[in-house]
Every structure is written in C-alpha cells, then in structure tokens.
C-alpha cells in the first residue's frame, strides 16, 4: 500500500476539522446580538453550548476516519479494528443526524413569530440527509469489510 494517499487524506481530514473548529469558534462572535455582550455571555448561550455538544460526534467520527486511514497505511485494514472504526463512524453519523433533526424540529416549532428560519431549516435538513447518507455508506463498508475479514481469518486458520 502506498503511503502517500492515506497521508494526503489524513491531512484533508485534519484540515476539515480545523476549519470546522475555526468556524465554530468564530461564528458566535459575528452574530448580530453579540455586539453588546462580553465574551462569556456570548459563549454561554444555551443554543451555542448545544451546538458545541452536537459537534462532538462529528469530531469523534473525524478522529475515527483518521484512525481508519492509519490502519490502511499500516496495511492493517482487514482487521477487526477497522471494522470497529467504521461502526463508530456509523453510530456517530446516526447520533449527529438525530441531534440535528431535533434541533430543526425545535426551531421549526418554537421560533419567534417574526423570525423566518427558512435558511436554517433547509441547511439543517440537508445536514440530516448527509448524515443519513454517511451512516448508510459506513454500514455498507462495514459489511463488506467484515466479509473480507472473515475470509482472511479463515485463510489464516488454513495456512
């Protein structure tokens, strides 16, 4: 296995993580109502905190993908470890999807009357959809990989 491509993808994952983190830290400061608040009350807003909590599964999944690429680079991809990493990614995507969907429902029902959160709802629905796609893709990969691992362990027993 050539090492270059896994390292490249690992760098991409790192970049995605850093960009996501930077946006998450920067965004509350640009919010209109944050102008008159001190730093503490900006970040102590319940919704902002909820946003940070929701992001945890996202970063866990990124870390698992990073680990998975590491296994591939070490030629250990057909192992139970990588199946487990894929399973964790699947669970993270499911949790993330459910949390985002809950948020969208909450905002849809309880938003202020003169507010129009159409953009938020569209983005949130799209994010839920993407999470579902990633969860299924991870599940398919997991199944395929599991079958390969089974074959390999059979092999190792025979030899």
């Amino acid at each position, binding site marked *: 296995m050539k090492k270059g491509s*896994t390292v*490249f993808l690992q760098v991409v994952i790192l970049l995605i993580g850093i960009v996501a983190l930077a946006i998450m830290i920067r965004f509350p400061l640009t919010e209109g109502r944050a102008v008159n608040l001190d730093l503490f009350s900006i970040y102590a807003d319940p919704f902002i905190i909820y946003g940070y909590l929701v992001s945890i599964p996202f970063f866990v999944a990124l870390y698992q993908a990073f680990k998975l690429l590491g296994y*591939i680079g070490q030629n250990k991809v057909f192992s139970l470890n990588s199946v487990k990493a894929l399973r964790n990614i699947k669970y993270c995507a499911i949790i993330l999807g459910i949390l985002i969907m809950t948020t969208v429902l909450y905002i849809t029902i309880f938003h202020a009357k003169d507010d129009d959160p159409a953009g938020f709802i569209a983005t949130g629905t799209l994010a839920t959809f993407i999470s579902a796609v990633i969860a299924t893709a991870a599940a398919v990969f997991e199944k395929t990989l599991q*079958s390969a691992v089974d074959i390999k362990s059979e092999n190792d027993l025979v030899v």
Partner: protein
Amino acid sequence: MRKSSTFFLRAVVVVIGLAVLALCIFGLPVIVREVFEYISDFAYLKFPTLIGLYITAAAFFFALYQALKLLSYIDENLAFSELSIQALKKIKYSALVMSGVYLLNMPIVFFLADKDDAPGGIIIGMVFACAPFVVAVFAGLLEKLLKNGMEIKSENDLTV
C-alpha cells in the same frame, strides 16, 4: 448483504444526479451569462467556459453511473472483483478530469472575485477544484484496498 442499505445509497445517487441535471439545464446557462455580463472584458471566454462546465458535468454523471454500478456489485457480493476495481478506476479518472477543468476555470473565478472585491470567491473556487481531487485520491485508495481484498479472496478460493 442487506439489499436495503445500498438501495438507499443508490436512490441518493439518482437524486443527486437529477438535481445536477436540473442545474445543468436551468442553472448553468443563466449563471455563465450573468457572470460574463459582469466581467464583459472576457466575453470571448464565455463559450469555452460553458463547454468546460458541461465537460465536468458529463464527467460527474459518468462517475455517478460508475458509483451505481459499484453499488450493484456490492449488492451481488461482487465487491472484491475486477469489475468493481474497474468502476473505481473510472471514478478516479473522471474526478481528475473535473478537478483539472475547474483548475483551468480558476482565472475566471479570480477575475470575478477581483471585480466583485470578494476574495471568498477564490476560496470557493479552490474548494470546487480540490474536492474532486480528494474524491480521486479516495477512489484510488479504495481501488488498492479492493485489489488487496481480491488477492486474499483468491488465495482463499485456491485453498478451499
């Protein structure tokens, strides 16, 4: 292999394809026209740009079709086979084509962003150029993995 999970993915691929098709038919001509009305100094680049964008769309549809084929191979338990390796190879090449054409389009994005005084436009253009490249690397990696898996499997078939 459960059929339901790849069915969902196939449906997603089809939906994405339809959305991009709609964008190609209704969106692209309008966007390109407006962009070149805005930077009218480069009007002679209008048709090459439009053709380039349609080339990337064609490559995209080709890659989507290969993805559909790959998913059906997974359904038939043929994931570790020469067929799926071929499909991944084609996905890799079409992603590289898309990346290359978007890179060629970068000067136009650059002029547009410059005239609009919106440096964010360049970043978005670079993301468009880089994302297919990441997909290409990923497809290449999967291709190698499948080759590995195929070797393991054929070893198995020989011993049994």
